[in-house]
């Protein structure tokens, strides 16, 4: 009986003894002594839905986030970096290049990219290339200059591909649909951060995705995403829906409005 119980007691004792220093070490924040605790990331947005009203001029989205189990020492020396992106709905995008033909400029070459986000806004604690090496950013597809832009079908020469990719990014940034803010994420307390993202006036409607990445000493350790709906409201929504879902009735309605306007004017301004 004794022989039987002894190992069990010893086992329990050992477990208890081992458990004690773990908690104390964690509380004292001694890095390297014990296996690291997995950090967590929580995010929330100021709103889950953005409405495009008739006087819509763009909107700001604030993303709040918290780091769980953050290592005080790493926090103190700024080893945690946060990147927050807001990606619009995806669609094919065709870039065309003009050339002079018989004196006039016309589109001669084109390249279509696979499902790229229609809008893209990124905020980070510091410039992306200071957080990650370029190769790693390309692998993650993180950042305007690193997102995946793969052409459909045809594969032209590499120089041309680079030109078209650059043009795509330039046009998107120029049109305000792609935005980059390298200081857009700020820590408001030791483990709370706030990211500000801008939605331009021409933001596409649909489901957007807020994606937060947490880096610790240049290693991606956690990520989280949240959907954000951008919707046209009221009359704008009704018109868009009608135009796409009942196009025939919508067309008839447009003609009717024209007939009523024209006829009404001729009645209203009749001289006799």
């Amino acid at each position: 009986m004794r022989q039987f119980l002894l190992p069990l007691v010893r086992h329990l004792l050992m477990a208890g003894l081992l458990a004690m220093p773990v908690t104390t070490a964690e509380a004292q924040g001694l890095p390297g002594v014990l296996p690291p605790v997995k950090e967590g990331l929580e995010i929330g947005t100021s709103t889950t839905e953005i409405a495009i009203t008739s006087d819509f001029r763009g909107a700001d989205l604030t993303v709040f986030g918290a780091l769980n189990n953050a290592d005080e020492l790493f926090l103190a020396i700024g080893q945690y970096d946060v990147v927050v992106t807001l990606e619009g709905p995806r669609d094919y995008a065709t870039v065309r290049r003009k050339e002079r033909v018989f004196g006039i400029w016309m589109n001669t070459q084109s390249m279509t990219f696979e499902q790229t986000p229609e809008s893209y806004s990124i905020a980070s604690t510091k410039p992306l290339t200071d957080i990650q090496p370029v190769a790693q950013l390309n692998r993650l597809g993180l950042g305007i200059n690193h997102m995946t832009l793969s052409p459909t079908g045809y594969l032209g020469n590499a120089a041309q591909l680079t030109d078209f990719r650059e043009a795509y990014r330039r046009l998107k940034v120029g049109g305000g649909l792609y935005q980059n803010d390298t200081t857009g994420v700020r820590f408001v307390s030791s483990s709370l951060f706030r990211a500000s993202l801008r939605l331009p006036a021409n933001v596409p409607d649909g489901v957007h995705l807020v994606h937060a990445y947490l880096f610790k000493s240049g290693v991606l350790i956690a990520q989280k995403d949240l959907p954000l709906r951008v919707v046209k409201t009221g009359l704008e929504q009704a018109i868009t829906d009608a135009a796409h879902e009942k196009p025939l009735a919508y067309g008839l309605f447009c003609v009717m409005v024209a007939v009523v306007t024209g006829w009404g004017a001729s009645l209203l301004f009749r001289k006799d």
Partner: protein
Amino acid sequence: MTVYLPIAELSVNIFIILGMGAAVGFLSGMFGVGGGFLITPLLIFYNIPPVVAVATGANQVVASSISGAISHFRRGTLDVKLGSVLLIGGLAGATVGVWIFSWLRRLGQLDLIISLLYVVFLGTIGSLMLMESLRAMRRAAKNQPVTLKRPGQHNWVHRLPLKMRFKKSKLYLSAIPVIGLGFGIGILTSVMGVGGGFIMVPAMIYLLRIPTNVVVGTSLFQIIFVTAYTTIVQAATNYSVDIVLATILMVAGVIGAQYGVRVGQKLRGEQLRALLALLVLAVGVRLAIDLIITPADLYSLQIGGGRG
């Protein structure tokens, strides 16, 4: 004050659109034209996508033509039978035109073709009108009587088969050139967003020898139905008719037209035509310049449209 255009998907200043509609309405009332050939380029200059500008322009022409057609119908200066034959060609042309429109859009050449067509048509019509009105003004200055040239009573058009009798126009004419003319105008309506009166009226007078008193009313009759049909087909295939934009343009347009008519009645015919010719040429030149000068960015971007 900005207003969001749900189909064009951009915000515009409502006063600029109102001003544009009123100005074109004023001119169309003054010169007795539909105004589609001015509205569409103006919208393009204001960065409205050409796809939306053309389809919405067609819709606007419905409104601006309807009051004119009503008054012609009341006065009896409208040949419904001739108009209907024109219309058969027009509807077929508009159908083909929308198909060409979608095809050019897929190819990425739509904007270029729209601009080119405008440059060619506005340039030709503007030059012809300017020369004609200058001649008329010179004649008027010398106190010579204005005589319309009528070279030979019959031309090749009148030797074609399938003749029909048009009582109101007092004509016995082959249906082929009438349908053909309607067809051509129908294509222009859907590709350029114009009524096409500026081409149809001269063609009816000089080519088909239709009496001038029924020409305007009959062309308006055909224009209303073809532009209405084009609006519906554009809405159904390209989803490109913006009702908000169209309504602002139409309301401002019909009001502007009323004042245009009053001013037009005070001006002399040839002066009026010379002014219109200069305006038409100016719009054509502006579009031509955009085609010739090196664009700020050689690249352009189109979203959607499948795998391209």
